[in-house]
């Protein structure tokens, strides 16, 4: 082992130790459980091979409701918070009076614990005592029972997630914007390029690296969203808004079948590892071409 390799290993050793002990070991334990007969109340731990995986994959609900819901949710939340976050970042990238105040307001959601935000939102969208319906009635509109129908429930969940994560996008994209070199923009102004063209052909391509990393990381996290959905709808009404992490949670912790829940989680992990990799490649190429 030469000096350079030793240096490389030394740089990652502390991180690797923590990662192995507190992430790799637990995940492998969970993966191991998924091949066994392992319920929480009666861990027999006998090897059953792929039986748990087959059960999950054969479950029509998992294929036809849970996976489409998860992908739909992921695409919707990432797209909405990216667009909104980008717009806010562009806005904040200008100098205007009160910018500091606007920026502080936009960052507010980062300061609230998501679980508390979700409890709040559930309360605010209650059909009886929620403020949203009170406002609707005040405007002379009919109140809506938000959480009893599939699409309105989805909208509420999406709204919460977008509210929570837009500031994150805005923050990182703004940092990206502020680090761009000024020369291309000055050239564009001299050429009297339209605002849209400047944005489309200069800002967007130059922001590419930041955006791609943001999108991919956020997509991974959105794919495993759990707590806000669990708090707001519990996957309901019935199973209409069930995401895959809820499916896994219900199996593992409500039905106490740890093995089956872990199998579902591992399936989800494989799906998202592949998906995120493809997304990364595609996004990179797409933006590259448009440059």
């Amino acid at each position, binding site marked *: 082992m030469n000096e*350079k390799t030793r240096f490389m290993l030394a740089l990652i050793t502390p991180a690797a130790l*923590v990662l192995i002990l507190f992430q790799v070991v637990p995940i492998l*334990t969970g993966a191991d459980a998924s091949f066994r007969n392992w319920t929480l109340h009666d861990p027999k731990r006998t090897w059953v091979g792929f039986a748990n995986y087959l059960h999950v994959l054969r479950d029509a609900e998992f294929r036809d409701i849970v996976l489409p819901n998860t992908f739909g949710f992921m695409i919707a939340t990432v797209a909405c918070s990216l667009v909104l976050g980008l717009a806010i970042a562009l806005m904040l990238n200008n100098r205007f009076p009160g910018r500091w105040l606007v920026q502080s307001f936009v960052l507010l959601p980062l300061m609230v614990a998501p679980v508390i935000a979700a409890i709040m939102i559930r309360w605010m969208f209650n059909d009886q005592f929620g403020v949203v319906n009170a406002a609707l009635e005040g405007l002379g509109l009919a109140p809506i029972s938000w959480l009893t129908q599939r699409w309105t429930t989805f909208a509420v969940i999406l709204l919460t997630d977008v509210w929570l994560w837009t500031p994150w996008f805005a923050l990182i994209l703004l*940092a990206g914007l*502020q680090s761009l070199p000024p020369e291309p*923009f000055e050239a564009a102004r001299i050429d009297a390029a339209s605002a*849209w063209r400047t944005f489309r052909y200069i800002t967007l391509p130059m922001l590419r690296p930041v955006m791609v990393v943001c999108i991919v990381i956020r997509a991974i996290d959105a794919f495993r969203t759990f707590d806000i959905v669990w708090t707001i709808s519990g996957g309901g009404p019935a199973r209409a808004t069930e995401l*895959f992490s809820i499916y896994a949670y219900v199996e593992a912790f409500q039905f106490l079948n740890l093995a089956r*829940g872990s199998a579902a989680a591992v399936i989800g992990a494989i799906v998202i590892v592949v998906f995120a990799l493809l997304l990364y490649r595609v996004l990179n190429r797409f933006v590259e071409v448009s440059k």
Partner: protein
Amino acid sequence: MTDIAAAPARSVGFFFALAPRGKAVFFALAATAVCLLFAFPVFWLILTSLRTGTGVYYVHRGTEFTTDNFHEVLSQEIVLRALFNSFMISTLATVLSLGVTATSGYMLSRFKGPIPNAWFSLIYIFRCVPYVAWVLPLYFVTQKLHIFDSYWGLLLPHIAVHICFFSWIMKGFFDGIDPSMEYAAMIDGCSRWGAFWRVAMPAAVPGLTALAILCWLYTWNEFLFALILTAHETPILTVVMAQFVHELGMEWHLMSATAVIALVPALIVTLFGQRYVIRGLRI
């Protein structure tokens, strides 16, 4: 905050070009709308925390307000302990996470080959596994190591979670720093460690500060790990908060009051950190 205003604002924005002068009204409206949208739930939380226990069900009705909720919450010993613990955990997790990910990000940025590739794949793949699959095994690990319900038992898993995202962003920071300075230092007789420590790290300080704030806020607001990995010895604020409202009873007004109290340190950290965040976060 004066620094932001004083910083030379580059007019690279889409909106600026859209609204040089005449469309200033549209711009102001958009800014106000954005503010309202983002602030409203927080405003509502504050309003709820000021209502009496009987007034919280229909917050928009009635006008009686009170600060009793805050008195009641702050007189509970567990809330104070949780505040202290959450503060300690957030700060320690921030310092330690940055410590281990700065080196890891530097490695990913400066070297190519099988080891960085393997390391990157490792952190990427394990990042993708949902928590459901491993919180329970994690609980067993902390019990086996006898650190369950202690600072270390919560800190180390937090650090593990931060490793992927932070290493990735740290790599970005170091990518943006010209390595030729480090080579020059090494030619001058500096060791690799010396080059990393004396040349690369100082240049990465703004990025570090930015990540520090994000990390602090994330840990401050984190719920799931705190719920599973702590019990009565180490109460954590988010868990204490959420316990006011549960399946078998609710003290909605007390939860809101605690949430507002929790908001204050977060607000301070964010307001003071803002300028570093924007300046430092470059991928």
